[in-house]
């Protein structure tokens, strides 16, 4: 805007300026700005700042909700956790689940997105059918799958029978329970990443792919040499979200196997924290475990973003 108008404006509002820490602000902007940010700060204090301070503090105590004891025990919660078999088992289950979920979810989504990127009949229907499970409520849809997995009256064993394969105990055996829930969560979640990859693929300028085709690139080369590197920022995001979400997964496990599954085979780290805190009342121990989970997620995502950032290619 013209400087003339600016001058006119400052002339009128000269008196309404304040100097804070050597910088000049307009008084009414400061007042209204603070007023508007106030609710955010209020909620942030109660849902973030205070709980974060408390969780650290509690993790150094043996606070028990049932016995109402609370003593300062230094690092005992942490050292005891590291010596508890249940902790390691739930951590191992979480890692098993996360690695498989991340690998399968990302690769299947990428594969299907590439297929959906072609011009095919019924494309819209395909996309919707992959996406529909993402939006439907999790608990309600896991009710369906609990039936699928029923060893006697469920359709899955019937289908296995048609295919001449041996029946499975699904959720009711320690060797298959975790993978059964994984299959459910793949069905539930793969559409989300398909949408992300698909939008990435559609953002790749046609000139890139055409240039590669002119150079005689096969479809295989086109994907690995052109499309995949260009999708890197999205792949990076998908993996990052995958790590965060799969390490803190809880709902589907709590619904499908409320007691941690056969021989604790589906007890994950969040289920373990939940059990410590709300079944046993051992709040201090649970807080220590939650913080360890946080550190783990934080380290993994930082590591991932370092690796991911190094090879990022800008689409523009």
């Amino acid at each position, binding site marked *: 805007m013209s400087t003339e108008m600016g001058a006119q404006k400052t002339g009128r509002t000269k008196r309404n300026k304040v100097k804070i820490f050597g910088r000049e602000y307009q008084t009414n902007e400061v007042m209204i700005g603070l007023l508007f940010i106030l609710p955010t700060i209020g909620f942030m204090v109660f849902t973030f700042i205070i709980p974060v301070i408390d969780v650290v503090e509690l993790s150094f105590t043996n606070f028990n909700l049932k016995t109402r004891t609370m003593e300062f025990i230094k690092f005992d919660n942490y050292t005891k956790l590291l010596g508890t078999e249940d902790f390691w088992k739930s951590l191992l289950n979480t890692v098993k689940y996360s690695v498989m979920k991340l690998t399968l979810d990302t690769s299947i989504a990428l594969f299907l997105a590439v297929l959906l990127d072609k011009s095919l009949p019924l494309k819209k229907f395909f996309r919707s059918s992959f996406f529909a499970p993402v939006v439907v409520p999790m608990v309600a849809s896991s009710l369906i799958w609990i039936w699928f997995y029923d060893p006697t009256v469920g359709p899955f064993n019937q289908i296995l029978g048609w295919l001449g394969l041996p029946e499975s105990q699904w959720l009711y055996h320690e060797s298959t329970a975790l993978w059964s829930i994984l299959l459910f969560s793949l069905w539930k979640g793969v559409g989300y990443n398909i949408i992300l990859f698909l939008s990435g693929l559609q953002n790749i300028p046609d000139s890139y792919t055409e240039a590669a085709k002119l150079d005689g690139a096969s479809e295989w080369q086109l994907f690995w040499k052109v499309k995949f590197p260009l999708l890197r920022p999205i792949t990076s995001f998908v993996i990052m*979200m995958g790590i965060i979400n799969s390490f803190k997964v809880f709902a589907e496990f709590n619904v499908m196997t409320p007691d941690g599954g056969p021989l604790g085979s589906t007890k994950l780290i969040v289920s373990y924290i939940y059990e410590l805190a709300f079944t046993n009342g051992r709040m201090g121990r649970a807080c220590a475990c939650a913080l360890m989970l946080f550190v783990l997620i934080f380290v993994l995502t930082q590591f991932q973003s370092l690796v991911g950032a190094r090879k990022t290619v800008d689409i523009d």
Partner: protein
Amino acid sequence: MSKATKVKYSYNRHTVSFIVLFLLSLAMIFPFVWMILSSFKTAADVYQYPPRWIPSVWNWKNYSQVFSMIPFLRYYWNSILTTVAETALQIVISILAAYSLVHLKWPGQGFVAAVMRSSMFVPMVVTMIPMYLLCASLGLIDTYSGIILPQITTAFTTFLIMSYFASIPQDMIDAAKLDGCGPAGIMMRVVVPNTKGAIATATLFSFLGNWKSYTWPLIITTKTEYRTLPIGLKYLTQESSSEYQVMMAAAVMTILPVLIVFIFFEKQLVRSITLTGMKS
């Protein structure tokens, strides 16, 4: 000649892609088909071996049984009430904050934004125990406030809305200033009306997140009458001792409205997902 083979080649490729996608799509929608069919089955149909896919008679009793087994409408109402309240609060607070951070200048902005950003890195599982204890000491267990207030996290929606607010041309704002609009007037008359679509996207996103919220309502409710739909359904699996046909009737009544909304809003939903992917 070579062109013809090339075309045929890619045609075959497309056929394979089509068949793969077609079969997988059927697998993806199979659970919904099964759910609807099975909600009409009788107990005899359910426990028949081998499993029966199509009900022998179309029996509506399972639906009425849902209402006699659990306070289903109450759960529905609780879910609607808490989700709408959470979403409304989140969006209003986010709009105010986004406007304040983008279009106004005041000391400490950078610090507030940094704290907000770091709050996005801390999952609920870390803060839930102290928050539960806080709510317990305030007597918020088994209250709507107890369900709603601790779930008001606004950092994500604020940053999402901020990115749109930043795209409003400064000229437009200067013009409104010259017309005598104060900061509040600029927000209500210039910034918000020009980002309606983006705010709708953020609202949809936040609504879906709140609707599926599970862990916190599970912790903070002990009485049946405060359970939200997901929590009520979770207990249905334990209380109905595998009366699958009733569970399916409940699932239909929960899922079908969402699927109908999905059919109408698929475009917006897809957009909200791609945007969050791009922004991060």
